[in-house]
């Protein structure tokens, strides 16, 4: 366990594994170069965000964009901070997070088994390929009214639309992962006497994991989009979508901008968590 954690942490932190025999360098000078490398890569990664904020600041300060459309970054971050600490922004973010995660859980519980089933049975997949592709290509927001009819105007309908959209993505990706399981590994299991069920459980499941995680991360993005839009337009009292549209209506631009940023943080954070989870679970990927 400890080793696994170290390994996944190491993977997250850097890709360069220390060479086994470094003859020229002492251990400490080696570590020093490594720290310098690490700092440099962090510095490189910060150039983008910092220039964006600088550009924002310039645009606001030099009045390139009307003050009625763009508050400055410092004011926005200030509002963000006070809304997070003293206001109810955390509550809104929590509400959105709760809906998104509920939708994802439903999609996962219903989607991963169906994906495995479809992926391991090519003729079954062929039969449903069109239906899945069709609904995947249909903007899920087009189905809002239908889900509202079925589930009524409350969180249930929001969760179910998001779950539906996430489910489609998951099914497709998991099925794809199972179908593209490496032939040799399946054969290896078969030649050792594994039954169909064992091949599915011991090989295909693992082989499909990489693609499953791709699906999960796509499902997170789609789920969050749907939840935010639903919160904007389907009778909500909280949630980031509701907060964004509300602040726009009352022209509280600083709150609107900071809500947008926090929503972005939500999406990015979820993505990051699952990326780390993927690197930890699918430790063999790309090796």
């Amino acid at each position, binding site marked *: 366990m400890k080793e696994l954690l170290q390994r996944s942490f190491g993977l997250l932190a850097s890709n360069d594994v220390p060479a086994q025999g470094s003859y020229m360098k002492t251990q400490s000078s080696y570590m020093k170069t490594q720290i310098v490398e690490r700092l440099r890569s962090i510095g490189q990664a910060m150039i983008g965000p910092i220039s964006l904020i600088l550009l924002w600041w310039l645009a606001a300060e030099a009045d390139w964009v009307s003050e009625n459309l763009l508050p400055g970054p410092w004011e926005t971050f200030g509002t963000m901070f006070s809304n997070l600490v003293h206001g109810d922004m955390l509550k809104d973010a929590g509400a959105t997070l709760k809906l998104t995660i509920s939708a994802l859980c439903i999609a996962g519980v219903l989607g991963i088994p169906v994906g495995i089933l479809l992926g391991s049975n090519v003729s079954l997949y062929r039969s449903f390929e069109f239906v899945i592709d069709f609904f995947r290509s249909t903007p899920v927001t087009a189905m809002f009214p239908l889900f509202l009819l079925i589930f009524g105007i409350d969180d249930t309908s929001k969760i179910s639309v998001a779950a539906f959209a996430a489910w489609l993505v998951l099914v497709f990706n998991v099925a794809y992962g199972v179908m593209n399981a*490496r*032939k*040799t*590994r399946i*054969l*290896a299991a*078969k*030649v*050792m*006497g*594994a039954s169909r069920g*064992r091949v599915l459980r*011991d*090989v295909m499941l*693992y082989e499909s994991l990489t693609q499953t995680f791709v699906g999960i991360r796509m499902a997170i993005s789609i789920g969050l989009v749907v939840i935010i839009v639903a919160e904007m337009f389907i009778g909500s009292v909280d949630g980031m979508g509701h907060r964004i549209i509300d602040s726009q209506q009352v022209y509280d631009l600083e709150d609107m901008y900071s809500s947008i940023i926090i929503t972005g943080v939500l999406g990015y954070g979820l993505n990051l968590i699952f990326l780390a989870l993927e690197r930890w679970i699918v*430790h*063999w990927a790309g*090796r």
Partner: protein
Amino acid sequence: MTTHTRSIAGLKKKPFRPGKIGTHITIRELTKWYSGKPLYEDFELDIPKNKVTCIFGPNGCGKSTIINMIAGLIEPDGGNILFDGKSLKDTVIGYVFQNYRDALFPWLRAIDNIKYPLKLMGKSQVECDLRADSLIESFDVRFDLNRFPYELSGGQQQLVSIMRALAPEPEVLFLDEPFSALDYEMTLFIRDKLQEIFQNTKLTTVIVSHDLEEAVFLADEILLLTRRPTKVADVITFDAPRPRDINTLASETFIQTKLKCLEIFQREVRR
């Protein structure tokens, strides 16, 4: 096409002809068609027991196909294959793939890869451990089997594949070009390990090879195949004592045997 050829094979069903004494695997009336052309048609072969048979032949003659059909990885269109009179279902076999990277399970540690076939057979944890320990001992493994396959070198990974194939104590060991993805140093290493197994266990072994020297070096019998539709061109015996080493490679009988195989091979390729 498949059902068509199968029904033909069914029509002319001859009484089963057992192999000569010392035969382990009998292949009779084996038929396999690929894209409308026969690869194997009425193919017959006896593979001897407790011996190493190396299969060598021109490109595309179906060297791998034949062992895959024997091992049950490819379904033949017709004919039958028996192991001492038993079907494959009642026979424990081991199979080593050419590409160890794709054949081992990277989500299991090397040691668990080795134990996997035993787990499939429903063996207890203790039995798995005992068998793994005896394999580790007989192979004199010097690297850490608690690592994941991708943390091992190519040769170590192929050694793990071989140990996995041998774990359930198979009746027959199949190796499909086991050296072709290895560098020369590792090839020599694995070759010696294989020789040890032959010498110690007298396990019936079938090796597909694309390197004639290697085939002769390892073999008790070299099975030379023709171009498709594939037949047996000849079976050459090489009975140099084991363990074989550099001196074997330099010996007169080795050179003569290799030459003979080469002549047959060239005759078949030009045909």
